[in-house]
């Protein structure tokens, strides 16, 4: 019926656009994208109008002016700029997250092991713990802790100066404080060298172990090198005072950079990224038989990559020309600040420590600035997130270990490994690979949950930001800062967890 020859000719006929699978696909995508962008644009323009009408500023000026607030605890309780106040909040969030993650991990593993125990009572206690904690909202638990701690008024601060290392009262907990002192940055330079040497030693010892089979303790010797450097650096660090001069020179160099130059460099980066991507894309599509076989779909992808780069260039050059000068100024400032940490008068120890003290400026006594003062708020949030997260980690640990087939234990026993060695060498390495990703997720949750601190007045980023936002009437920029900070925290945690995950996988092979 059909003549094959004419069919072959027809192969080059293009269907009309509304029937072309590729084009229809892209039309739909672009249409939906347009709808979404239009909606966002619509809302944003309305917001712009409303904000102008109601005189709500959207700029970031508040970062540089006195916020007029005090922060209840942290590295600086009376910050002189809004930016500084937010920075105090960020440090508090990070501090809470790190402390919480460490404690929750320990408690979580203990609970997981309890749930695996063959001992009935231990097992039951573990499961009661999990079922109780997991099913009550974290915020309720934090409030309960805060209420319980607030009723703890056993210690009277009026009784004169306190002695000792630890002090607990309804004002909170005061611990000895270790802090960075004069010589820290110079000492840090020594430690960078130390880390390089330690790394080299570690590698060398490993190589020797592999080659000869002798015990060479690579980790121990690497750690030893670090300790030695730390100790020596404690005394010799003033030698590195000259680094300050270098940093100042870098700052000058940055200051001399023309704005337009940086704009060009940034644009070139965008364009370069797009070109590189397209090149690797073309390489992927290349077949041995000849040049790349590109479908229409591929063309569209490349065009959109180009559009993306174009948007980047547009932002840098036209939409936000201030960006480059901001980048220049802030990196110059960074180097200047760093430079000032070196050189004259910085011969002291890198660290210093102080014990808790009590002051009584007015009618009420309170912990003085010497100690590391943890408020009731800190304790409530800390107990809350740690106990809560530990319940989830416990379940994950239990699930991970149960997921290892029984045959593994039996095989390990069959080759004569002792029970502890079985656990250490066979079960745990496998279980950890199952456990780590969900536990990483729990770490993320913990970091995000610390934001509930606002409920009990612990000055984390959200609490400080909310106060500043209300004070200055600039909720929008504060919201942007929150977003960026938490995205950075999430990213950091997932990168760290991923790093260990990959490492473990390689070790296992």
């Amino acid at each position: 019926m059909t003549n094959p020859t004419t069919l072959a000719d027809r192969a080059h006929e293009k269907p009309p656009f509304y029937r072309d699978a590729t084009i229809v696909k892209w039309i739909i995508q672009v249409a939906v994208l347009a709808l979404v962008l239009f909606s966002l644009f619509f809302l944003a323009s309305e917001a712009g109008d409303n904000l102008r009408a109601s005189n709500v500023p959207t700029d970031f000026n508040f970062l540089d002016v006195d916020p007029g607030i005090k922060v209840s605890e942290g590295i600086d309780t009376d910050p002189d700029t809004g930016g500084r106040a937010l920075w105090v909040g960020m440090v508090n969030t990070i501090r809470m997250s790190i402390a919480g993650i460490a404690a929750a991990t320990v408690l979580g593993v203990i609970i997981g092991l309890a749930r695996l125990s063959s001992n009935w009572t231990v097992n039951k206690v573990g499961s009661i713990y999990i079922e109780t904690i997991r099913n009550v909202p974290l915020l309720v638990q934090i409030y309960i802790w805060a209420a319980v701690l607030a009723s703890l008024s056993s210690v009277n601060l009026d009784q004169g100066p306190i002695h000792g290392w630890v002090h607990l009262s309804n004002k909170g907990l005061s611990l000895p404080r270790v802090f960075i002192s004069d010589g820290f940055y110079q000492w840090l330079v020594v430690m960078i060298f130390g880390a390089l040497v330690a790394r080299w030693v570690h590698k060398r010892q490993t190589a020797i172990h592999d080659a000869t089979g002798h015990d060479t303790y690579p980790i121990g010797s690497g750690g030893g090198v670090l300790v030695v450097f730390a100790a020596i650096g404690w005394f010799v660090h003033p030698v590195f005072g000259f680094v300050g001069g270098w940093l100042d020179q870098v700052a000058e160099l940055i200051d001399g950079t023309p704005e337009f130059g940086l704009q060009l460099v940034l644009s070139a980066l965008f364009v370069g990224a797009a070109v590189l991507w397209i090149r690797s894309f073309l390489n992927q599509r290349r077949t041995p038989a000849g040049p790349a076989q590109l479908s229409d779909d591929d063309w569209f992808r490349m065009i959109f990559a180009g559009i993306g780069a174009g948007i980047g260039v547009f932002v840098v050059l036209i939409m936000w020309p201030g960006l480059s000068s901001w980048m220049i100024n802030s990196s110059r400032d960074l180097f200047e600040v760093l430079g000032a940490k070196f050189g004259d008068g910085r011969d002291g120890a890198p660290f210093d420590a102080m014990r808790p003290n009590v002051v009584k400026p007015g009618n009420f006594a309170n912990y003085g600035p010497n100690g590391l003062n943890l408020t009731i708020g800190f304790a409530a949030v800390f107990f809350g997130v740690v106990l809560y997260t530990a319940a989830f980690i416990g379940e994950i640990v239990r699930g991970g270990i149960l997921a290892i087939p029984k045959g593994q234990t039996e095989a390990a026993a069959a080759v004569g490994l002792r029970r502890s060695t079985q656990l250490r060498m066979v079960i745990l390495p496998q279980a950890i690979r199952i456990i780590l990703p969900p536990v990483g997720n729990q770490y993320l949750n913990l970091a995000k949950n610390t934001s509930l601190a606002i409920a009990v007045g612990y000055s984390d980023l959200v609490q400080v930001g909310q106060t500043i936002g209300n004070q200055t009437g600039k909720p929008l920029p504060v919201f942007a800062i929150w977003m960026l900070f938490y995205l950075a925290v999430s990213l950091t945690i997932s990168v760290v967890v991923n790093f260990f995950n990959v490492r473990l996988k390689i070790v296992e092979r």
Partner: protein
Amino acid sequence: MSEESGVALESATEDDIDDQPMLKPEEPSLPPGEWVQKNLFSSVFNSVLTILTIVVMAFAVRGLLNYIFSEERVWSAPATNARLILTFAYPESQYARVWVTVGLLAVLAGTSIGLWAQWAGVSAKKLCFWSMNLGSGILLAIVLTQPGVHRDAAGEVLRDADSAVLRKSFATAMSDRLVWWIVGLAFIGAGLLAWNWLGEMRRRTIRVPSSALIFGSLGLIILSLWIVNYGHYAFSDGEFIAISGRTVASTTKQPWTVMWLILVGSFFLGRRISQSQRAVSVKGLMNLAWLLSPFIIYWVILRDPSIDYSHVWTTDLPIFLAFAIGGGAILWLLSYPGIGEAGRLAGVGLVVVAIFQFAAAFTGWYPMLQKARISFVVLALVGLAASNFSGERSQRVRFVGVWVVLMALLHYFATVMNSPATVDVVSENFTGGLTVTLFVTALTLMISFPLGVVLALGRTSSLPIFRIMSTAYIESIRGVPLITILFFFSNILPLFLPDGMDIAEFAAIILGYSLFSAAYLAENVRGGLQAIRRGQYEAADALGLTSPQRTSFIVLPQALRISIPPLVGQVIGTFKETSLIAIIGGFDLLRIGNQVIPAQTQFLGIKRENLLIVAAMYWLITFAISKYSMRLERRLGVGER
């Protein structure tokens, strides 16, 4: 509602297995001596561990019991404010509305349980054990509890053994204890007796239907309202009432008794229906009723909008009719089986027009109500997919019918939401307490579910722009804490809205929760989508199904079924997360316990008691859902085909 339909699918084949034994074999039980030996004292280390744990636990439980029964505790604070905790300051004169709501839910719940439940029942053996355990628990608690500290009227602790007050107080304490001794022993005795009796009759494996157990224990609790002297604590017309030594107020026990009767009555009704021919259609109706109930209850019953009828006649109704009739006609045409490419072209045309009319909104070309604009976009999207769902006449009728219902709901709720409430509730236009907690949970889940499914499809799509958009959305939402999103929606969102458009704080909060929850939901659904084998897609393609058809008939039904366990987890998560309303200024369950009650002059600063009661309420609900999800998981695992 996904799990609802999942259950429906299974119960179509098995009808009533209430009295059938579970598929899981029961653990072979050891004699008590061996059990103790094996589980508690298998080695020296284990023995030490056991004893240590028991001692520590005994002290902990003792501390807790003393804390709870200490006379310093003001349990009358939550008791007096029970109404506040449940509904916040809902006006007393309008309370009938609350009872109508509870009654409706009782009808729905009872009927659904009757229709769907396939509980395995509890074996008599287990019941005996429960009874004995409960009895021993009570005895243990009495032994561990201290006989309390006694104070005189001035609040000084009494130490003098001759004090008449102390003697009297001690005597009361002892008689209370005696009652509990008797109760504990009675439970143990009943368990033992039943155990022996059933053993003689060789009927220990006989099963008691779970429904009887649940309704029975609910009934017992309600009966106790009539008998036990819980005391009458309340605020009535602002007046503080505290009468101990009598039963609760009749305005409490009478309605709850009626509710229990309604619940049980509708259970039997559901049972009847499930055995009749109409079971399937009634089940469909029940699903729809559940789906609509939160909206109707919230906006129609609890809020009673005062609708501006002149506006309805002149604006709302005409717009609705235009879209229902005009849109329906367009969809009728587009779903004509033979329409082919013309349909596709018309669909694309509709979308283009929709984009333009949407874009015109902010160029100010022509004024148009937001409702109409949004309806137009919905129409265009439905129209684009219309040809995929065309078919015989009845199919097209159903298609257009669904459209009309969708429009009706959309326009109805848009109108109702923008009308002021008739029921005047303190601050804002929503109630509070447990009510608001439950409503936020329900509405959030209903709104975020479709959104989450769409996002999951986008993220797994082969179309790069969709994938990038969905991924960016999901990841940025998941990267930030919920509280910041809620702040955004309660503080910042109002700034974004055009003039004349207002959003109630309640709606803003729900929007915030929904958009947040959708990102997590999407990840759960994505898990299900990824579990579907490639062969399923290929088979659908090879049959000539279009990709919307492939998604809705093949991929989603399977993916959602796989995702049921994590989705139930998400329900629990959302329920717990509603407690954050307390931070952003709503009067939810938690806020009332933590701030409202401690601010009352009678209970100034009383926090811990309320918080513990609130925690217990959260715990009960969450624990119930998670137990249910475990059962569901097990059954899905067993029923794996």
